[in-house]
């Protein structure tokens, strides 16, 4: 009898059930989309923050002091120590290599081009194909320095072509496609570079060209590493030397800027890696603010959709007090009336919950694709959680209305005076 009552209730009151079901579906869809966006926003914004530039700098351990003013290093290029270019692919072998977005080696030498003496020439990777073990990957300034704009083409890493900084190009009266002579050889200018910083006065060349001019094959002065990191907390700020075994393991296996720098230092012989605090510290703050904001907004969204679902359920039950009156007049107890309503609410919540979860997943994917050009992944683990929340919210929303409904005097209810 009970299943039949439930079944008939759904069959005969399609409009009301649809309305309540639609409210639940909508609420669950918004909740799912919000949870998915909020859990993924940290990762997405972290990647966006990487456009501000590299956050870890690797230098030779035994290096002499840099004499850098306004982005120009006055130290003679032959002075000091170097890193070995052959060690670079090892960066992909570190524990957190999946978090390393890219890296760019740098080697600065001085050249004379035409009348202009002592121009800084910066050798680097533009978009270099490298191999570590069986894995091929691409890295260079196009990944780590996304604010560098080139008018013309980027040179190929194995070519002798160069980029000219825009101020230098204006001073020399050269443009992309022209040729410039330095180091006893003519080079094609592939493009003119604009960075808004010291590089505007420099020549940017493939790394091997700079090494040849310096006469030191394989030499690299610094490596800029762009890594996805976790905001620094109390553990991240501690010095690893003071940590005990278990704590050290936890620190080592957390993607703090400091622990990734430590691992880079281990991977590259004779190196010293340091987080660039301007970038690394601030991105932690910005990231935690944005994550916090999305968490609170998600909470607010969950709360308002829970209240909306409750209101819809209350209305749906209230409309059926005549039915309650009739059932009670026919001898049904409070318990069986309540059981009927709860069974219906549970069915609605499960149906609406599954539909809403599917809709919310689609919505989250659309948001991810439209705003971040990447997928927002939805953990299937979320489904039972979302369904449980939907059932609880629907029950909570129905409870008050059901209590009132079963308390009606059937006589009044049937006369329509309730």
């Amino acid at each position: 009898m009970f299943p039949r009552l439930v079944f008939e209730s759904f069959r005969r009151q399609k409009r009301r059930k649809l309305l309540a079901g639609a409210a639940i579906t909508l609420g669950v869809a918004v909740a799912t989309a919000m949870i998915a966006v909020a859990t993924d926003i940290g990762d997405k914004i972290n990647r966006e923050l990487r456009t501000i530039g590299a956050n870890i700098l690797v230098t030779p351990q035994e290096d002499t002091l840099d004499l850098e003013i306004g982005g120009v290093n006055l130290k003679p290029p032959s002075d000091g120590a170097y890193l070995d270019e052959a060690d670079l692919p090892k960066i992909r072998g570190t524990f957190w290599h999946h978090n390393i977005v890219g890296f760019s080696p740098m080697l600065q030498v001085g050249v004379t081009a035409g009348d202009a003496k002592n121009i800084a020439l910066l050798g680097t990777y533009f978009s270099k194909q490298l191999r570590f073990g069986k894995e091929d990957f691409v890295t260079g300034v196009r990944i780590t320095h996304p604010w560098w704009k080139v008018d013309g083409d980027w040179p190929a890493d194995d070519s002798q072509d160069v980029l000219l900084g825009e101020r230098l190009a204006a001073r020399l009266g050269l443009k992309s496609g022209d040729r410039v002579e330095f180091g006893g050889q003519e080079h094609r200018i592939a493009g003119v570079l604009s960075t808004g910083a010291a590089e505007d006065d420099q020549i940017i060349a493939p790394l091997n060209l700079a090494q040849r001019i310096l006469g030191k094959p394989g030499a690299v002065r610094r490596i800029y590493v762009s890594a996805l990191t976790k905001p620094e907390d109390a553990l991240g700020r501690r010095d690893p030397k003071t940590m005990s075994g278990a704590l050290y393991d936890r620190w080592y296996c957390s993607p703090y800027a400091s622990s990734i720098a430590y691992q880079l230092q281990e991977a590259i012989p004779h190196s010293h890696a340091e987080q660039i605090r301007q970038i690394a510290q601030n991105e932690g703050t910005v990231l935690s603010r944005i994550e916090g904001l999305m968490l609170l907004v998600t909470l607010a969204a969950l709360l308002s959709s829970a209240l909306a679902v409750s209101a819809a359920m209350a209305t749906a039950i209230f409309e059926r007090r005549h039915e309650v009156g009739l059932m009670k007049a026919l001898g049904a107890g409070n318990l069986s009336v309540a059981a009927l309503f709860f069974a219906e609410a549970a069915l609605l919540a499960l149906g609406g919950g599954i539909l809403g979860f599917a809709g919310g997943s689609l919505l989250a994917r659309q948001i991810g694709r439209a705003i971040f050009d990447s997928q927002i992944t939805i953990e299937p683990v979320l489904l039972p959680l979302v369904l449980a929340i939907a059932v609880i919210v629907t029950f909570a929303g129905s409870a008050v209305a059901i209590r009132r409904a079963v308390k009606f005097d059937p006589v009044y209810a049937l006369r329509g005076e309730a």
Partner: protein
Amino acid sequence: MSTRSSAETRRASAPHASMFWRLLVRAAVRRRSRAISALLAMVVAAAAATAMLNLYVDVQAKLRKEFRSYGANVILVAKDNQTLPSDALRVVDATLAGRGLAVPFAYVVARTADGQPVVVAGTDFDQVRKLDSWWSVTAWPSSPAQALAGVRTEALINSQKGPFALTFQGRSIQLTSAGTVKTGAAEDSRIYLDLPGFEAWTGVQPSAIEVAVSGSAEEVAAIAAALAKALPDADVHPVRQIVEGQARVLGKMRSTLLATVVLIILTSALCVLSTLMGWVFDRRRDFAIMKALGASARMIYGFFAAEAAVLGGVGALLGFAVGVGAAAWIGRANFHAPVVPRFGVLPPVLLGSMAVALLAAIVPMWLLHRVEPATILRGE
């Protein structure tokens, strides 16, 4: 209805105002619980809309403030390795007019006692502390004879709090190191001095001014242009790295919040619509009785519309108050600064709420008006 005659006269003429209000108030009082649940739905929706709109407007400013901790976003450098004019800082401060922070820097390459070259910089420590909050400093210098040494210069100056000498163009100076600075960048290889002491020693004026301008990318560009005009001797350029990154992250965040705002407002509006429609539909008996007693269509529509408008208005006002509170709480919890209530949000919330309420009243009315009152009253 107290007397028949008065009812009859009223039926014939336009509805009396007091009767109209009595109907309105009685309808709410008699069905308290239904009215309250409808009002509650309205309040929740209006509160959600208010909080989200308030956040949406204010969060940009809040996040921009967080981005200011990245330091300078505009840099002035003297052209061709000269120094800036001596009144440059004053001109910059006047141009900024409180919308940012300007810090002068002067650089020379000096030599230590054993002839090692090192970059020495002169600056204003109080301002640097505000501008470059990421500097990890063990102790800031407190007297002019104290210097702030980059961590990599420590070995060079070999200072165990003892004095060390620096020489520039034959003039030497005795300094003690107050503490070390660590940034992971060029600052680590420099020694910083207080600007007046630096100028007295070297005679070199500042060659760069770093400026942190608060505001959007357009405002930063406008101030950079104004600075370039005020100081023709200097190269003024925005720090593209910071400015572009900020604009990008803020843009994405703005779009995400907008999507969220639209989603939440839409959901709340739809749920309110369905709740209110249920409420009005449920009162088809009132509607039928009024019709059966001969009320004009105008009167009935007017009554239900007024009821909806009052509900929407009261719900929106209560919801506005709750929503402003929620936004302020979110601001305090996350940004440690409350979100300022924007009263500009009130009119759209108020109008939106009333529009939803009116729509919720009109749709069932339109469905019911062709039905004979007798059919409704018989309960069919």
